[in-house]
């Protein structure tokens, strides 16, 4: 009996279709989790069957901000802290576009904090993915608004003494309709969460805790990326629906993950249209999505 000869066609990595492969390799360090979040992002796009021609990604400045430059989508690498207002303009001008803001903890919560809370307040239909590596990584690991207490950073040589924001709590309080947190260890859950968020109208926010082995972990003698991933596995607990004021982070303590907020609230555009129609009747002419001619 002869052995059957079979040719295996190796299927491509699903992430390849989404990457600007002419820009590989990327700049992220060994053990950095940002690339992991991008895998989850691409899986989420595939699973949610999002029309990729109608999806734009907007980022700010920082290591996570570089995501915009690597994905093969309409992508906008904007200024520090201002991805959200750029996304606001893009979304309002092109209402059928799915607009994803992909940026880091410092970009979104320090310099960009004001824009974040207003976009959440308005319930703009944009999806924010915040990769939180607890530091300003790109510039060398300085203290950020999410850096826990007692952590050594480039600008806190003796350890931090000002408390961080609790990111889910802040966006929840500001009015976000979808708030979740995962770590880069939770790849399956993160991909599912992203897909869920893409389908939900309104201001969605997912915090992804990620290693920064070169700076944050190294300065605090917390090992490398793999050590950090094992740490996430060890200390994280999935507790959906936890009140967001209870999910604050500490240097080595429990990381509560899960979906914390999933509520219904009309988004900005829906409210605007309904109100103007009510007030102006036939005189109201809604803005149309532009066509190139």
């Amino acid at each position, binding site marked *: 009996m002869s052995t059957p000869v079979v040719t*295996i066609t*190796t299927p491509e*990595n699903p992430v390849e279709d989404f990457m600007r492969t002419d820009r590989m*390799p990327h700049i992220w360090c060994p053990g950095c989790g940002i690339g992991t979040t991008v895998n989850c992002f691409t899986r989420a796009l595939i699973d949610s069957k999002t029309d990729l021609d109608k999806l734009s990604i907007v980022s700010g400045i920082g290591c996570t901000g570089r995501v915009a430059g690597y994905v093969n989508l309409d992508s906008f690498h904007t200024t520090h802290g201002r991805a959200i207002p750029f996304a606001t303009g893009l979304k309002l001008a092109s209402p059928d576009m799915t607009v994803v803001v992909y940026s880091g903890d410092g970009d979104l919560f320090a310099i960009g904090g004001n824009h974040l809370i207003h976009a959440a307040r308005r319930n703009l239909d944009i999806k924010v993915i915040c990769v939180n590596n607890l530091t300003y990584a790109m510039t060398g690991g300085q203290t950020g608004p999410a850096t826990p207490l007692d952590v050594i950073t480039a600008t806190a040589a003796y350890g931090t003494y000002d408390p961080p924001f609790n990111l889910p709590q802040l966006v929840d309080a500001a009015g976000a309709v979808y708030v979740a947190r995962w770590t880069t260890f939770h*790849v399956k859950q993160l991909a599912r969460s992203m897909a869920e968020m893409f389908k939900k109208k309104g201001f969605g926010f997912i915090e992804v805790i990620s290693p920064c082995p070169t700076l944050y972990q190294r300065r605090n003698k917390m090992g490398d990326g793999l050590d950090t991933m094992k740490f996430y596995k060890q200390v994280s607990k999935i507790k959906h629906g936890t009140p967001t004021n209870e999910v604050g982070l500490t240097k080595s303590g429990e990381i509560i993950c899960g979906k914390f907020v999933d509520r219904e609230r009309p988004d900005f555009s829906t409210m605007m249209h309904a109100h103007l129609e009510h007030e102006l009747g036939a005189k109201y002419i809604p803005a149309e999505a532009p066509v190139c001619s």
Partner: protein
Amino acid sequence: MARGSVSIVVERCKACGFCVEFCPSKVLALSDAFNSKGYHPPHATTPEKCTGCDLCGMYCPDFAIHGFRTDKTAAAAATEVEKESGDAC
């Protein structure tokens, strides 16, 4: 017979170890080989255990590995396929 296989883009790997650690079937280990940047890329030490779940692919921050099902494409031996990246680094 393996249900799956992995494909590794050796030149992209930075030997972070995520795939090795989180493969549920413990198929992978960092090899003794080097890529041009001096990293030890992974290889499948027990390829017959691979289920093609692609958790390695989801974890890899460098897009250097992914897993895929092979049992759905007729009888096939699981082979480790190494693809040299031709891109300039």
